[in-house]
C-alpha cells in the first residue's frame, strides 16, 4: 500500500514539474509575443520557384538577425513569420489571410512572382495591411490602383528603359523574344519589344513557353530561322539554364540577353557550363564586384554574412531582396513609432533607406488618389565570359 502511495506521490511530482515547465514555456511565449514586432513574409519555399523563394527568405532572416543584434526597433525585437505560398496563387492568398488574421502582422513582405503578388493584392485592400514587394516586376502591380503596395524591385518598363541606350551600343539590329507565359514574362516581352522598336530595332518573333516547360526545341527552331542577332529571354533561372543549353545544341547564333534579375549567373555557370559563355544578364545586384554598387559597404557586409552562413553563392542575387525589404520595413516601423498597419503605410512613403541595390525611396504610380509606391532601383548588365561573371 505504502509502495503504491509512494508511486502516486512520485507521479504527482512529475506531473507538477511538467505543469511548471509547460506554464513557464507558455508564459515565455506570451512574453516574447509582447516583446516582438511581427513582420509577415510570404514566399514560395516549395514548388516551381522554391530555390528563389528560399534565397529571399534567407536574406530576410540575415537582416532580422542584424537588426535584432543592433537592438531591434522601438525597443522591441522584430520577428519574421514566414509562410510558404507553394509557388501557387491560391496558396499565396491563404498565406496572406493567415498572416494578417491569425498572426496579426501589421506589414508583409512578398510574394516573389508577379502572379503570386497580384493574387495577394485584393487581400491587402480588404484588411488594409501594406505589403513590400521585393521581386515582382509586372507593371500591373503598381498601376492597378492598390495603395497598399510598396515595390522595391524595378518594373519591366524601368528595366527596358535602363537598357534602351544599349540597343545602339551593342549594335542590335533585329531582336527575338522568348518569355515565360505569365504576368512576369509577357510584361517584360511587351516592354522590351516596345523599347526596341523605339530604338529603331527590328522585332523578329515573339515566343512564349509554359512556366513549367523543360523542352524549348520548337521555339528555338523558330528563333534560329528568324535570323535575329539578339534574343531576349525572360524567365527564372531554371528555364534560362535549359534555354542556354538547348540553344547551343540547336546552334542558335543569336546573342542571349536575360531580363528580370532572377537569372543567377553563378548558377548558370555551374549548371549550363560552356553554354552560359557569352550570354548577357540584367541583374539588380552585382555580388561579384560589390564595389560597383551605390552602397558598397552594405553590399560587402551582406556578401560576407551570406558566405558566413555557407548559403549557396548563386542565391546572392535573390537574397539581397529579402535584406533590402526587411530593412525598409523596419525603417518605416521606426518612423511610424508604432507597429500598426496604417501608421506603417504612411511612414513607408517617406522612408530613405541605404540598401544593397541602392538608395530606396518611393515615388507614386497608378491612378490618382489610389497610388501605389514604386522605388527606382539600379539595374546592371553583366556578361558571362570564360566561366566568370564580368562587368559590362
Amino acid at each position, binding site marked *: 500500500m505504502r509502495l503504491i502511495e509512494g508511486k502516486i506521490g512520485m507521479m504527482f511530482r512529475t506531473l507538477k514539474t511538467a505543469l511548471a515547465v509547460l506554464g513557464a514555456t507558455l508564459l515565455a511565449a506570451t512574453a516574447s509575443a509582447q516583446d516582438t514586432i511581427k513582420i509577415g513574409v510570404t514566399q514560395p519555399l*516549395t514548388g*516551381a520557384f522554391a530555390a528563389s*523563394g528560399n534565397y529571399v527568405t534567407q536574406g530576410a532572416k540575415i537582416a532580422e538577425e542584424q537588426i535584432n543584434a543592433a537592438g531591434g526597433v522601438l525597443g522591441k525585437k522584430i520577428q519574421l513569420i514566414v509562410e510558404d505560398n507553394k509557388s501557387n496563387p491560391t496558396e499565396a492568398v491563404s498565406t496572406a489571410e493567415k498572416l494578417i488574421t491569425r498572426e496579426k502582422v501589421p506589414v508583409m513582405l512578398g510574394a516573389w512572382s508577379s502572379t503570386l503578388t497580384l493574387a495577394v493584392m485584393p487581400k491587402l485592400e480588404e484588411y488594409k495591411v501594406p505589403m513590400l514587394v521585393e521581386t515582382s516586376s509586372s507593371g500591373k502591380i503598381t498601376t492597378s490602383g492598390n495603395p497598399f503596395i510598396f515595390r522595391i524591385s524595378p518594373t519591366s518598363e524601368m528595366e527596358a528603359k535602363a537598357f534602351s541606350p544599349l540597343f545602339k551600343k551593342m549594335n542590335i539590329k533585329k531582336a527575338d523574344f522568348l518569355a515565360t507565359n505569365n504576368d512576369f514574362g509577357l510584361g517584360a516581352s511587351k516592354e522590351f519589344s516596345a523599347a526596341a522598336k523605339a530604338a529603331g530595332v527590328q522585332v523578329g518573333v515573339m515566343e512564349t*513557353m509554359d512556366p*513549367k516547360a*523543360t523542352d524549348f526545341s520548337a521555339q528555338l527552331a523558330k528563333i534560329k530561322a528568324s535570323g535575329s542577332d539578339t534574343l531576349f529571354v525572360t524567365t527564372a533561372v531554371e528555364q534560362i539554364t535549359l534555354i542556354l543549353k538547348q540553344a547551343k545544341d*540547336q546552334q542558335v547564333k543569336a546573342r542571349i540577353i536575360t531580363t528580370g534579375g532572377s537569372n543567377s549567373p553563378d*548558377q548558370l555557370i555551374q549548371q549550363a557550363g560552356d553554354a552560359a559563355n557569352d550570354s548577357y544578364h540584367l541583374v539588380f545586384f552585382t555580388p561579384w564586384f560589390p564595389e560597383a554598387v551605390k552602397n558598397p559597404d552594405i553590399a560587402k557586409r551582406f556578401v560576407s554574412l551570406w558566405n558566413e552562413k555557407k548559403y549557396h553563392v548563386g542565391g546572392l542575387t535573390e537574397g539581397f531582396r529579402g535584406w533590402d525589404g526587411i530593412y525598409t520595413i523596419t525603417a518605416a516601423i521606426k518612423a511610424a513609432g508604432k507597429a500598426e498597419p496604417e501608421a506603417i503605410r504612411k511612414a513607408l512613403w517617406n522612408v530613405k533607406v541605404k540598401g544593397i541595390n541602392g538608395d530606396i525611396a518611393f515615388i507614386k504610380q497608378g491612378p490618382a488618389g489610389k497610388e501605389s509606391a514604386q522605388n527606382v532601383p539600379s539595374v546592371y548588365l553583366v556578361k558571362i565570359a570564360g566561366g566568370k561573371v564580368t562587368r559590362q
Partner: protein
Amino acid sequence: MDQFLQHVLNALILGGTYALLGIGLTLIFGIMRVVNFAHGELYAFGAYMMYLWVMVLGTNFYLALPLAVLLGVMLGALMEFVLLRKMRGADIDTTMLIMIGAWIALQNTQQLTWTGVAKSIDSPFPTSPLVLGSVSVSWNRLFVFIVALALIGATYVIINRTRLGKAMRATFQDRDTAALMGVDINRIYTATFALGSGLAAAAGALLGPVFVVYPTMGDLASLKAFAIVILGGLGSIPGATIGGFILAFMEELGAGYVSSGYRDAMGFLLIIIILLVKPTGLFAQKERIG
C-alpha cells in the same frame, strides 16, 4: 524547309522519351487497374538517383544509368508491396487516392532531401552538337533516343516473348481466371509495378543530364504520360508508343507553326478530338468488364 526539318528531328527525339513515359503508365493501368499518380515521381526519382551516382558518388555515367533504373525498380516493388498489396480488390478510386498520397509524399521527400535548388548532371558527351546539314541535335539527346527505343523494344520482348509476359497478359485479360490457372497474381502485380516504375525511372535518369533535376519535375512528366496513355488507349503498349510520337509531333509543329503559347494546348486539343471520335483511344483493347 530547314526549320521544318529541325522541327521533325526535334519531335522524333522528344517522342522517344514520351513513349517511354507512356508505356510504364499504361502497363500499370492495363494490368493492375491502378491510376498511378506517382508515375512522375518515379521519373524524378530516377533523375535524382542519377545525380546521386554521377555527381555525389562519382560513378561512371554508363554504370550509373542501370544503377539508377535498378533503384527505380526496387522503389516501385516496395511501393507495390507496402501500399497496394493490402488494397487488392479495392476499387479504382481508393488506389488512386493512395497514389495521390504517394505522389505528394515522394515529391516533398525529394524537396527535403535535395532542396529546391535545381541540380545538373554532367554527361560524357561532346558539348558541340551533331550537325546534319542544316539541322543539329545534341549527342546526349541522340543517346537518350537510342536507349529509349531499345528499352521500348525490350519491354515488347518481355511482354510478348517471356513466361512472365504471358502471365502478365493472362492477368490483363482476366485476373480471376489467370489466378485459377495457377498464375501467382501477387508476383505479377509486383513485377508489373516494378517494371512500370523502372521505365519511368529510366526516362528520368536519361533526361536528367539533358535537362536539370528539381523536385517538381515529375508533375509535367505525369501530365504528358497521362495524355499519351489516353491518346493511345488505356492499357495498350503500341498505343502508348505511337501516342508518344503523335503528342511530340503535335507539340513541336503546333508550337512551330501556330503559336508557342499554345504548345501544350495542341496535344490536349488532339486528345479531345480523338476521344470524341473514338472514346476508348486510338488503340484500346476491348474494355474489360467487371
